[in-house]
């Protein structure tokens, strides 16, 4: 399902996006404008409550906006979200996998929801499990896995149907640095092949690996660009420094 990278063509376009939560009248997203190109790895960073996850939920269509427009792969969201749903893969902040099922059963469930047949599923699973270092765990009940392993299962569930856009909401939390480095390489190769990756992260060295970074604060995009551009503009040595300077200096642990 992946298409070759056509530079400049946007995968996601968001304009004047506003989300006000009913409870507490919180403006979680406040007039956001955003363009994410096809084949790009785009990292949304920001302090807790800055609106990253809300933005992601709005883009994936599981949360409806108060106003503004969202376009994903040329289709309006949330209006066309069912069609968009077959083109995207989402790994949410929670593990969001079934504890009572095995690794393979979980992945098969999400593959089935995407309309995959067993003969498409088998080779795809055989390819993905080793990449995420789970090939020996396919028959293990998810309940018995560590947090990091559950998160990897969750990412495979999002990737199984070869989506055109992958959304990762804090999806690499709890994964050890070696493995993380390993599958960042894999994500890079997928992006080179045309997959668009949108992620939120608190790990700043991870954000540095993105093609572009959007820094959010109070529901607004306050800085955007390639990691080196941003560092230069802010006169900082690292994205972490940028983060502390611009995000309001709040703690980043979540």
């Amino acid at each position, binding site marked *: 399902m992946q298409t070759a990278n056509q530079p400049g063509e946007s995968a996601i376009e968001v304009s004047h996006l506003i989300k006000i939560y*009913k409870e507490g009248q919180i403006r979680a997203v406040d007039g956001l404008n955003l363009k994410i190109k096809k084949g790009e790895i785009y990292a949304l960073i920001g302090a807790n409550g800055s609106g990253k996850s809300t933005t992601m*939920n709005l883009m994936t269509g599981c*949360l409806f906006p108060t106003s503004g427009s969202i376009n994903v792969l040329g289709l309006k969201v949330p209006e066309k979200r069912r069609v968009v749903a077959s083109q995207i893969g*989402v790994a949410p902040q*929670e593990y*969001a996998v079934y504890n009572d099922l095995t690794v393979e059963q979980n992945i098969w469930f999400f593959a089935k*929801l*995407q309309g995959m047949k067993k003969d498409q599923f088998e080779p795809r699973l055989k390819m993905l499990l080793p990449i995420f270092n789970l090939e020996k765990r396919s028959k293990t009940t998810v309940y018995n896995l560590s947090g990091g392993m559950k998160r990897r299962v969750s990412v495979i569930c999002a990737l199984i149907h070869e989506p055109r856009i992958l959304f990762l909401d804090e999806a690499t939390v709890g994964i050890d640095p070696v493995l993380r480095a390993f599958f960042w390489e894999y994500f890079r190769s997928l992006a080179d092949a045309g997959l668009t990756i949108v992620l939120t992260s608190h790990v700043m060295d991870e954000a540095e690996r993105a093609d572009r970074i959007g820094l959010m604060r109070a529901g607004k995009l306050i800085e955007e660009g390639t990691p080196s551009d941003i560092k230069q503009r802010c006169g900082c040595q690292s994205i972490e420094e940028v983060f502390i300077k611009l995000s309001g200096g709040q703690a980043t642990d979540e």
Partner: protein
Amino acid sequence: MSNLRTKRFSGNRVMAVSWRVLKQIFRDKRTLGMMIIMPAIIMLIFGFTLGGQVKNVPILVDNQDTGYNVAIGPNSSSSFHFGDNITASLQGDDRVKVTTGSFESGKNGVDNGTYYAAIAIPANFSNSLFLKSRGQDLNTSIPIYVDGTKPQNQASIFGALQTALQNLSGSGIAIDKQFAFSGVELSGLDVSIPSVIAFVLTFLVLLISLIIVSRESTSGILPRLYTTPLSAIERLLGYSIALLLLGIVMVAVILGIGIGVFGVTVGGSIYLLFLGAVLYALAHVFMAVFLSNYARNELQAVQIAPLIALPSMALSGMLIPVNSFPAWVQTVAKFIPMYYGNKIFEGIMLKGYGLGNLIPEFLIISVVALIFFVLAVATVKDRISA
């Protein structure tokens, strides 16, 4: 803190735990409400339905007694109508609600559930009694055709009849019992199994379905499912099919143990019984899928099942026959699905009814299923509501 010694036992720590538990409960408004509303509802319902003796059992009396005239002088005579005395006594007794009519129509009424007994007082009743008191060896008996499926009703009927016959006691009046349906007196187990089936299905199908569906919404998976092509209705139907299969397994276990282990009699078709049980389970699956919208966690989901099942148990006539409730409670009972579940299971198992006798009940359960399906579809969430 100047004193670094830690006490081995601290009342403060105990109170901290109590304080925390109460704070949590007060924040969980649904649990709090359940704690107050549930006992209140159960007390009220059981109070209204269990109170006192079983009353107003509908019976039919056919008083054919022609009386007996005795000459007490050359020009005067006195007539005795013991049948009238008995009828009057029954009519004045609040344990039974008397309709008068022909014995045959009464028997039909018992067969189709209108009456619980039909009593015939024979034409020569007074005559025989009188002659018997004069030393003639005559057999006086009152035929009664009785529905044996409700022991409490049966007890009230025979109690009222005994009272009516008390003044004539010593006259050796025999009560000639004929049991409707199977023709034999049913055992306590026989008569209780149908409502146990209805109760177990109500309670377990609701409980298990609620737990399964609410677990999904508490595990963080639901928002993820919203981002897949799975539509809300597909999800709902998926739940329903799986839960219905579990319901069928439960039905099979209940019937298997009832029939296989306890030898419970099934007067009618076992296939119809199975069909009725599956339909009844389906209605409760849809009810659970609908109600799971209102449970934020598994604990709240678990609370819903008894909240429905316990009042249903009391109101459906499982413990005390519906006819003994106050009139308005009887009206409420007609809105309880288990009331119809009981009728279906009792009808098939104890009365040997076929589908033809139970069309209204099957229709009502189907409508209940449909209503809850529509409600579930109308309220099912397909996105994060915020």
